[in-house]
Structure formats: C-alpha cells, structure tokens
C-alpha cells in the first residue's frame, strides 16, 4: 500500500490542464435537458408570466368586481377614486422601498409621515406660520428624524427592527404632542391647490406620486447609484470590496426615507386642509403589503418600484371592490393583512428559486 501512496502523490495533478480539442459543455449541467427547445419555451413563458402575474390578478379582480357590481364598480368615478386617494400610501411605500432595496428595514415610515403632517398643520394653523415655512420645517424635521435612525442603525450598528420600532412609537408620541391629541384643520384653501389642483381628471398629488416613482425607477435601473444599491442589498461584503461606500448608502437610504415621508405628509395635510394625528399608523401595513406584493412582479424576488406601484393600486382596487360589495369597515384589515402574508410567502418562494 505504501508504494501506492508514493506513486500517487508523485503524479501530482497531471490532470488539470489545457482544454481538449473536443471540448463540450460540462461546466454547467443546465444545458443538458432532454428537450432543450421545448424546455426553453416553457422557461420563457414561466419567466414572462411570473413577471406580469400581478397585472393579470389585478385585471381579474377588476373583471370579477365588474361582473358582480356592474352598476357601481364599472364607472369612471371608481377609477378616479382608486387613483386619486392613494397619495399617502404611495409616498410611504416609496420611503419603505428606499430602505428595503439596500437590505435595510424601516418600521417608522408611517410615523414619520404622520409627524410631518402634524407639524405642518400645527405650525400653519396653531402657530400662524406661513404655510411654506411650516412645510419646510416639517420636512426638515422628518429628514432629521430619518438621519437619527440612520445614525443609530448604521453608525452604531443597532438592530434595525428594534430601532425603527422604537423610533416609530416615539415619533407618534411627538406628533400627538404637537397637535395636543386633536385633529387640526384650517390650512388655507390656496395652499390646498398644491395637492388638489385638477389635472386631466386626477388631483396633481397623483402625479407627484407617479413622478417620484419614475425618479426611483430611473435611479434603480439606469444610474450607477441604483446598481450600487442593489449590490448593497444583495451582499454588503461584495459591495464593499467593489469600492462601494456601503455605510454611506445605507445611511442615506434612511435619511431619504425620512425626506420622502416628510414631503408626503405635507402634501396630505395640504390636500385635507389639516391633519388627524391618529390616522397615519393605518398606512404602515398596506405599505408593507404593497412593497412585498411588488416583489412578485417585474423583477421576481426583488424589491422594485414598478411592482410596488402596481401593488398599491391592486390593493386599493381590491378594497374598494369589496366595499362596493357591501363588506365595509373590517374588510380592509382582513384584505391588507392577508395580502401581506401571501406576498411575503411569494417573495420567500421566489428567493428560494434564485438561491437554489
């Protein structure tokens, strides 16, 4: 036996070496399927269908509601309601998306949004500041709050879920304090036009949402920053070794999240002419639902802005349709909650597909 061992170790990797002339593919086993052509078509179909599945489900929901309630659902007013009423959800979802895309987590978005609206209303109505000064202060305050969260999470390395949960409750308290626990109204009608001005049948605030989505889409898809963000989200070590300033991007994601929530809160306060401090928390869960639902579309398994945009209006279509069927009050909670669970399940399964 000993000589065998000798002989072998002497042979030392005579193997390894240059590619033989009749090289065929054995680096990947993927190509060796029995019926490649059929397999490819099937794969392509699956890929396309999973990308647009959510649009199909949306269309199906519209169809079902149209058949069930042709008199009330299938009217221009319904769609006007769907598209005009979602300004808060749009802004909060985008803020959430900013952090999710880089692998972070933010539970404080709804409270930031509420704080901004409350500050705007309280400063403009109770303190008689000019609306523009009030708006500026509100946005600055939420941006600063976002930066504080960012510093605690990124610089001190504290767990993001716990930090943002704490920040969420604390900021909600501040918002209640600012408004003395009461809803405030009386912001000037003129300033309301900033949000309510009618453009092609929809309030201008819808277009703000659309614009900010397009900006995020552009950043994510076209710019180096978007590429860097997806690497920070996918693998921080890899991103760091590629020369990406990982912590700077993470810090900015929380701060920008605060900024977007601030702007969104100001716009809602302007459109309502005031603000009710207790309402903002209701947006947190739908925003999560929309963002996770978005991972089921366009870029399966990944947080993406188009998917989120579609997700928001899918959610609203569902809720409105169910309300028109006579299910009111409780049905929103059931629907949003169930969609969130289903959406997270879909995300997890799609991710497993990627990692496999």
């Amino acid at each position, binding site marked *: 036996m000993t000589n065998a061992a000798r*002989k072998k170790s002497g042979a030392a990797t005579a*193997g390894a070496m240059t590619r033989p002339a009749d090289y065929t593919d054995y680096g*990947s086993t993927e190509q060796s399927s029995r019926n490649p052509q059929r397999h490819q078509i099937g794969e392509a179909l699956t890929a396309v269908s999973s990308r647009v599945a959510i649009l199909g489900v949306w269309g199906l929901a519209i169809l079902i509601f149209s058949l069930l309630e042709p008199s009330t659902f299938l009217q221009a007013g319904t769609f006007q309601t769907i598209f005009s009423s979602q300004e808060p959800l749009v802004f909060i979802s985008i803020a959430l998306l900013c952090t999710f895309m880089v692998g972070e987590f933010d539970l404080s978005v709804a409270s930031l949004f509420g704080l901004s609206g409350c500050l705007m209303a309280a400063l403009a109505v109770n303190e008689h500041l000019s609306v523009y000064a009030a708006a500026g202060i509100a946005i600055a305050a939420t941006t600063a709050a976002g930066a504080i969260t960012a510093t605690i999470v990124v610089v001190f390395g504290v767990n993001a879920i716990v930090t943002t949960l704490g920040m969420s409750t604390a900021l909600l308290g501040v918002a209640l304090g600012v408004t003395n626990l009461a809803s405030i109204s009386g912001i000037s009608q003129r300033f309301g036009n900033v949000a309510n001005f009618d453009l092609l049948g929809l309030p201008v605030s819808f277009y703000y949402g659309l614009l900010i989505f397009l900006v995020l889409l552009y950043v994510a898809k076209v710019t180096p920053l978007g*590429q860097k963000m997806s690497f920070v989200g996918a693998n921080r070590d890899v*991103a760091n070794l590629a020369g990406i300033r990982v912590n700077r991007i993470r810090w900015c994601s929380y701060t920008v999240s605060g900024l977007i929530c601030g702007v969104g809160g100001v716009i809602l306060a302007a459109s309502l002419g005031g603000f009710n401090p207790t309402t903002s928390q209701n947006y947190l869960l739908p925003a999560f639902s929309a963002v996770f639902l978005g991972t089921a579309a366009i870029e399966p*398994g990944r947080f993406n802005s188009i998917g989120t945009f579609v997700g928001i209006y899918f959610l609203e279509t569902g809720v409105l349709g169910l309300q028109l069927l006579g299910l009111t009050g409780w049905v929103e909670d059931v629907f949003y909650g169930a969609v969130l669970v289903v959406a997270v399940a879909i995300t997890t399964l799609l991710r497993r597909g990627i990692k496999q």
Partner: protein
Amino acid sequence: MTERDLRVTDSAPQDVTRPVPRLAVQGMSKTFGAKRVLSGVSLTVGSGEIRGIVGQNGSGKSTIAKILSGVYQPDRGCSFVVDGRPLAVPVHPVALRKAGVAVVHQDLGLVEDFSVLRNIRIGASRGSRIIRRIDWKHEAQEARRILDTIGGSAISLSQNVHELTPTKKAKVAIARGLEGVPSGHGLLIFDESTKSLPPADLQEFYEVVRELARSGTGIVIISHRLSEVLMLADTVTILRDGEVVGDGLATSELDEATIAQMMVGREVQQHSKGQAAEFGPVVASLDAVAFPGLARPLSLQLREGEIVGLTGLAGSAFEHLPDALAGEREGVAGKVVLRGGRVVNLVQTTVQERLRHGLVVVPEERTKKGLALSLSVVDNMSVPWLDARGRPWAVDRRWRARYAADAMSKFDIRPTDIRALVAHLSGGNQQKVMLAKWLAGAPSLLVLHEPTQAVDVQARADILDAIKGAAAAGAAVLIVSTEISDLRLVCQRVLILHSDASLSEVSGEISSDRILSMVYGSTRSSDGGGQLTAGSNYPAERS
C-alpha cells in the same frame, strides 16, 4: 450506556469482520424539475473501508452528501441499507443519525459560541423522566469518552468552540458524528472537510480518519483534492454527470491522471507554462507592508507580466496578505507603489483609491465576498467599475454588456447569457466571473487568493489560463495559495514566507518538491506530491 446505544447494538453486527457492509445504497437518483443530477448511483462501503468520492463540479458529489445526511430525498426506487438494516425511503435525518450515519460538512457545522460539550451533545442530550432536567455529568462523560477515542484528550469540554484550533474543531465535529454510535460502528462522511484545515494540520487529521477506519467505522471522503483521496482512501467512486463511471476502484491501481481522465471523460492535456523570459519594468512594489500576525514588515517587487506565487505555513500569516492589501484587516501599515509611481498608502486608503491606482485583490471566498449570487453576471462584472466607466446619471450600458459578453466567450463561461443569475452558475464558472470582474480594470498589480479553490479540473485550467492572460496584458500577478501544484504550473517564481517573515524563493525549474522542502525545511522526503502533505506514514496493515 444510553438507551440509544442499546438500541443500536441490539441489531448491529457485533463482529466487525462479518461481510455486512456499513452502507449499501442501490439505485440512488435525484431529479430537480427536468434536471437529473444523479442517476442510478450505487454505493457500498464496508466496515473499516475508506471510500473516496471524486468528480467535477456538478457531477453529483455534494448531492450524494446531502442525500446521505437526509437534506435531500432520493427519487423513488432507491434502496438504502445501513449495517444490514434497510431504512425506509424517504429517509428521515433522525433515522440516519440513529443508524449511525453522520456527515462532517466542509464548514464543520459547529456553533462557535457554544461549548465543546454542547456542540457534541446537541440533539442527543436527554432530560430526566419528569422534570426534563439534563444530566450534564452524564453528558460530559459521554462526550469525554468519544473525544478520547479520536485523540481529542487535550480538548476541554467547557471550552468554547471558537477558541479551538481548526484541527480540534474538526475533532469536535467528528465526535458529534460518532455520538451515540458504539465504538467501531457507524459511517462517517467527510464532505470537503479538509477545506477548513491549515495544511500543516492535515497529517494529524488524516491519522484520526485512519484510526477510525481501523476501529471498523466506515468512512466516505468527498473531496476535490485528488491527491488527498488517493493517499487516504482504499477505494474510490468516480462520478461524471451524475453517473458512476468507476465504482469502488482500488486506489492502489490508480493515479491522478487516470482519475482526472475518467472524471472528464476524455484525455486531459498537459498544461503548458509560458516561459516568459523577459519581463517589463517593476510595476508593483510592496514597501514595508505590515499587519498583525506578520513577524516583520514585508517588501517585494513585481515586474510587468510576471506571475509570482506566495505560500508558506499557517503560522507565517502569508494567507492574510490579500486581506491586508484589500483593506479588510485592522492595523495594516506600509504602502504599495504601482505603475507610474502611484502610491497606495495602506494605512489610510479606500477601495476606490486602490482600484483607481490599479491595485486589485481577488478575494478567497467567492460566495461571501466575491460575488452577489442573486444578481446577474453582467451586474457582478461591472460593479467595481461603475464610477470609472459611467456617468453619475447613467451606467455605461453598452460598455458593460460588451465587456460581459467578451469575457464570457474569452473565459468560456457557461451558460452564455450575460443576464443569468450568478447563483445558477456552477462553482467553476462563478470563479471565472469573479476573475473577469476584477480584470476589467486592467490592474497594475493583481493579487489572487486561492484562485482555484473548489473548482473542477477544467475550470482550473481555464482560470490558470486567464491568469496568464492577465499577466500577458501587462499586470504583475501575485498568487497567494496553498495549492502548490497551481503555483508550480503558472508562476515564474514562488516565494515562501516563513514564520519569522523571511522569504525564500524558488525560480527556474519549479517543482513541488523544491517548494515543499522550502516550506517545511530540509526534512521532507523526496516523494512530495501536489499538496502540502505526503503519504509517508500510510499504514501498511490496512490492505
């Protein structure tokens, strides 16, 4: 003796010489969707036998390990017999453990923050009848007994696993695999377990494995290192594309070239080393580079087009040099002077600055630090160069698509879709993507850390070719590796770092022997192989 021990001994054969194989699997297949990764594999391992399993990436080695540990279920029609007793398919991991089958994974699967005792008895500790209190004294006795049988007497049960040396960790992992198995029974599967061990400790590890086999335990070794399998195993199973092409061949009849040929399915040609006689000017000098663990500052100079290998023993900290140059270590001092007098001061520098000056470090762990698996090939290849190539408002899409497509054909990366997710590529192809990613910057100094780690025979040849290509394009290349055979093949000179931080150099006719004798001093026997190990004390009685 615990309840479980009794149960096992009841029906297990008492006489280890009886011809009941430890493991007899017939017709083991595994299909994922339309993809069959394993078809009709049979594996019989006798008592006291050491069986090697070799094959290229994607040949089904790791699938076998996963089936034997119960992670995957084999397709229908598989018969699974351990110690003469059939196990019902689907095979539950608990049933496998009870039958005495255990897998020691490549990362050993230990909980670093827990004590040795808890790691060994994980899943085995039993509570007392009513109050479910764990009898730690009994637990400790059991763990001690197992550790002592495998030469782990020096390991304290109360130590935390992260305080142990790699070899001791491996022993703890083995002890856990043997837990509940009467001495001389059981089947241990080592799935690339030596990957985490420093070269100097391998000999001791091999001895433990041999000792286990002598006591009657069946051993399966799944490994990329052919020399290791040849040295350690009695018999070998060779896989190609999920099928067995050589079943239970006696290793005494084989050599590496034959096995490699069977793995690939055709003759593999000898690698030719380009003997670049003349090199350009010095384009990279490490100037007094120091970091904790290195005995004294290190300086060396590399010329344009030159490929230099760096190796050494574990204590010399040579393996930390790439991290130090990449800015991944604390307390690094010194500087690197690159082409055109550009200076990278290692004390205070950023990754961007390094890349801009042409200092590129290709890290070791491709899945952790090298590539983002969930993103596409083109994204991964372009990410370090986004700022250099694009504008702040737009990525240069045309450049990156062209670069990725060129690189994929140049390095023969399959599948050829630049939008394919890196996770869907085989290990060798991933390694090539990682290399292509770093070569896009036309570096002055390219530092590679274990560039052929865990890749198959063909990918290794491709990667070594790519490295030579990078040197020919004007880079100075420094390969930091323990794979002497790689260094021997592509390097014009090999440096050996000793524990006192002095350097020896082998150049001209580079052989494994010469490198090994430098690494270990002059006491090496002359039959040293392609690894930092040699089969000198192979037990003659095990025939």
